[in-house]
């Protein structure tokens, strides 16, 4: 048990617990907030693993943008503020969901643990400069494409929000 292990265990547990709450809470807005906690602590994990830039981006993009968008969506769709049972599916389906999710997690976990078993390893800390070099060297092609993806996503999202019904007789 190294210090890294300990740190990771702490933020990891935090992340897992807040994740659990995010998917189970009856409060709609709480779910979004728990997601913030979860993703934030995940950023902590990244830090432990030596990925500062990723942690930063995680906080900026996820916590800063994504969750804001989610909250915004909740607002627009007039989500109820208080506790509500309407957000969850039926009990049987949830039970089934527990089984399915748990078994999938076990499957993935089993494979991963056997893959990552072994003694403690040194963390390969990558400098931001090296990362930037690779990003704009090796990974320039997907990076450029990503910009197109973002652009088109934003444009279509915009168009979607402004969608108006057409006259039915034009429906051809």
């Amino acid at each position, binding site marked *: 048990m190294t210090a890294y292990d300990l740190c990771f265990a702490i933020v990891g547990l935090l992340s897992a617990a807040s994740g659990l709450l995010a998917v189970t809470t009856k409060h709609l807005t709480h779910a979004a907030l728990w997601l913030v906690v979860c993703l934030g602590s995940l950023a902590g994990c990244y830090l432990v693993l030596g990925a500062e830039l990723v942690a930063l981006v995680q906080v900026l993009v996820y916590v800063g943008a994504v969750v804001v968008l989610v909250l915004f969506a909740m607002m627009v769709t007039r989500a109820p503020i208080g506790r509500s049972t309407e957000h969850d599916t039926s009990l049987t389906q949830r039970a089934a969901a527990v089984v399915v999710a748990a078994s999938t997690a076990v499957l993935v976990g089993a494979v991963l643990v056997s893959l990552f078993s072994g003694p403690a390893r040194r963390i390969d800390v990558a400098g931001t400069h090296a990362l930037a070099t690779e990003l704009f060297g090796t990974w320039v092609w997907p990076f450029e494409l*990503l910009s197109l993806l973002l652009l088109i996503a934003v444009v279509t999202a915009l168009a979607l929000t402004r969608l108006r019904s057409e006259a039915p007789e034009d429906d051809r």
Partner: protein
Amino acid sequence: MKVSVNWLTLLPVLVPALAAILVLLVDAVLPRRTALHWWFAAAALVGGMVATVPAARAPVRTLCGSGQPCLYAADRVTAALQLAAFACSLVAVLLAVPVRRASRLTAVEASAVLSATAGAVGVGAARDLGAWLVLLELATLPLVALVAFRARRTAVDGALSMLTTALTSFGVTAVGAALWFSATGSATFLGDAAAQAMLDDDKRRGVVLAVLLLVAGVAFKLSLAPFHAWTPEAFDGASTPIGALLATTSKIAAVAALVVVLRSASAISSSTLYVLGALALASMTLGNLMALREQRTLRFLAWSTIAQAGWVVLPLSTVDRPGLPASVAYLVVYAVATLVVFAVVTLVAHADGRDAATDLSAYRGILRTRPVAGLALALALLVLAGLPPGVVGLVAKVAAIVPVVHQHAWWLAIGAALNAMLGVAVYLRWLWLLWQPAGAAQRDPAHPVHRVVVALGLLALVVTSVLPGTVLAFLR
């Protein structure tokens, strides 16, 4: 690290991508010129096809760095897929030209179609996880929006269904990709990293799971059962040209993505890949059985694509070398026939109103009322059923079964044979209506563009049925 970039080689992806941006710019400059955007998109797609020609002649590659393999590579099979994707999008665009819609949406729609095409074209040539994931998503996300753009209740419902499935599948794919990276230690689909990993027990399990998760993620796009549930909703909701896009370009993108994965995972044992066979059989059976009682045209087509996706994947379930080209061959034939069907549906929907086209009984007697469209529809259905005179469909089925038999996967072959029978039952149901006496409904003349597309489709079906070698040339 610097990589050398040959822009000419990347042109097939760049042309639609840049065109997508350009359309938006043009719209900003010259708003409300609806037809212009579509024709521009069509021109861009034609340009993309031209750009694909070098790859079709000889394998090309670029994005090569020092000491690392190239991250963009297109060979014959990839080029065929790219060409097919361009052609399918082109047809969808042409079909969309006469369709009336809110003018402010046109540019976005054209742009979305173009970017989805760019994704479909690029994903087959991508050799690294990053580009692969981005392009796959690029081929998916705009389609969700396009479905919703019909702005009807069913359309947004379908879009929601598709969206959630797409997002979940992307989550699965992402985990699969991460697992691939963890297990092989390589972020590319190149070299023998996977083969090396297979030698280690733990890593092997990781690779297998990674491949299967990637397959599961892509399977949603192919509408393989059980990842299919969004398909009928989206098809039924979307406007018919978009339906055509969903049924063809999107599938081509999925197959291209799958081909990239499976090529690099050729060390995986055949028994694992039988999972794919099982998926294929499940899709065929479910799709056929559901189509057997479906009355709504577009849902019928959705179930039909689900069943056909099974045939597309069937040859991939073998590690045999001819498996990949056979799958692509089947896909191309399927795409041509499906496009013709969609073209006819669009023609009828545009001429007589969507309500008149979305019920199967609307095609009663179409052989007499609209002979060319009727013949095209009949031939396309026969190609899908795999029965002469739709010889090319039959030959494609032969091509699909060959690798399975070579692998001695008899259970798969017999299952496929029984499904061939079910499929015939499905398409004969529709075909039967074409012979029936027509109702006395008023028939408006079809739009010239639609008529040209349908006629060209009929011609294509006839030519390929007489000379199936033309469309299956890359099988060698």
